[in-house]
C-alpha cells in the first residue's frame, strides 16, 4: 500500500485523474457530470491535484461564458500510469 500515490489514491481524485487521462482537456461541467461530485467537492479535489502538479487549470471564456479547462500535466499522466502499475502489482495481475 505504501507504494500507491496518496494524492491519487483518494477515491474522488482517482476518479478525476482517470477521467482526465482519456482526454486532451475537458471543462469543469463535463467533470462535474461524469464524476458525480458536487461543485464544491470537485473544486476542492481539483485544487489538491493542481497543488500536486498533476492537473493544469485554465480559466478562459467561450463567447461571454466563463469556461474552466482542465488537463492532466505530464507528471499527472506519469503518476497515474505509476499508480496503475502499482495497483496491478498489488492485485497480482
Amino acid at each position, binding site marked *: 500500500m505504501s507504494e500507491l500515490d496518496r494524492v491519487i489514491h483518494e477515491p474522488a481524485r*482517482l476518479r478525476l485523474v*482517470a*477521467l482526465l*487521462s482519456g482526454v486532451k482537456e475537458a*471543462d469543469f*461541467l*463535463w467533470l462535474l457530470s461524469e464524476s458525480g461530485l458536487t461543485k464544491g467537492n470537485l473544486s476542492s479535489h481539483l485544487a489538491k491535484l493542481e497543488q500536486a502538479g498533476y492537473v493544469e487549470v485554465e480559466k478562459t471564456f467561450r463567447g461571454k461564458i466563463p469556461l474552466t479547462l482542465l488537463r492532466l500535466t505530464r507528471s499527472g499522466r506519469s503518476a497515474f500510469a505509476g499508480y496503475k502499475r502499482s495497483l496491478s502489482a498489488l492485485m497480482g495481475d
Partner: protein
Amino acid sequence: MATPSELRDLETRSQRYWTLDGIPERVMGLVWLLWSAALIAEDALPRSAWGGVLTMAIPAVLVVSGVGANWLIRRLKERLSYPRTGYVGYPEPSRRQRLLAAGVACLAALSLATLILTGRAEGMERVISPAIGLVISLAFLVLSLRQRAPHLLALAGVALALGIGIGMLKLGWRSLNWLFIGLGAASVALGLWRLRRYLAAHPRETQA
C-alpha cells in the same frame, strides 16, 4: 479501492461521450445519404458533358463531405452538447495512427485499382454490397467494443443485414446506392432517437 477494470471504464468514458448525444450518428447518416444521392444522380444523368462533370466531381464530394461532416459535428456539439454536459477535447491521433490509417486507405485503393485495371473486377458487382456491408459492420463492432457502446451494435447488425439482403436482389453496382440509403436512414434514425433522449435527460443549464 478501484479495480483496474473500473479505472479502464473511467478512462474510456470520454470515448462513449462522443456518441452520447447521437450527433455523430446523425451526421454520418446524412453523409451516407449524400453519397448515395451523388451516385444515383451520376447514374441517372445521360452520358453528356454534365454527366462527365458529375462523375469527376464525385471524389470531391466524398472528400468534402468527410471534412464537412467533422465540422458540422463540432458546431452541433458546441450548440447542443457542450452547454449541457460539458466540453471534451480529444487527443490528436499519434503519428503512428495517422500513418496506419493512410496505409490502409492506400492499400484498399490500390487493390481496387488493380482489380479494375487487370479486368478482374468482373463479377465484383455481385459481391460488392455484402462485402462493403461486412466491412462497415466489422468497423461498428470494433467501435462498439472499444467504446463499450452497445447501441453501435445495432448499426453493425443493420449494415450486415442490408449488405446481404441487397446483395441477394442482384442490383449490380446500384446495390451500393441502396446500401448507403439504408445505412444512412438507419444511422439518422438512431442518431435522432439518441439526441431526443439526450436532450430530455439533460436540460440546458448555465456553465459553472
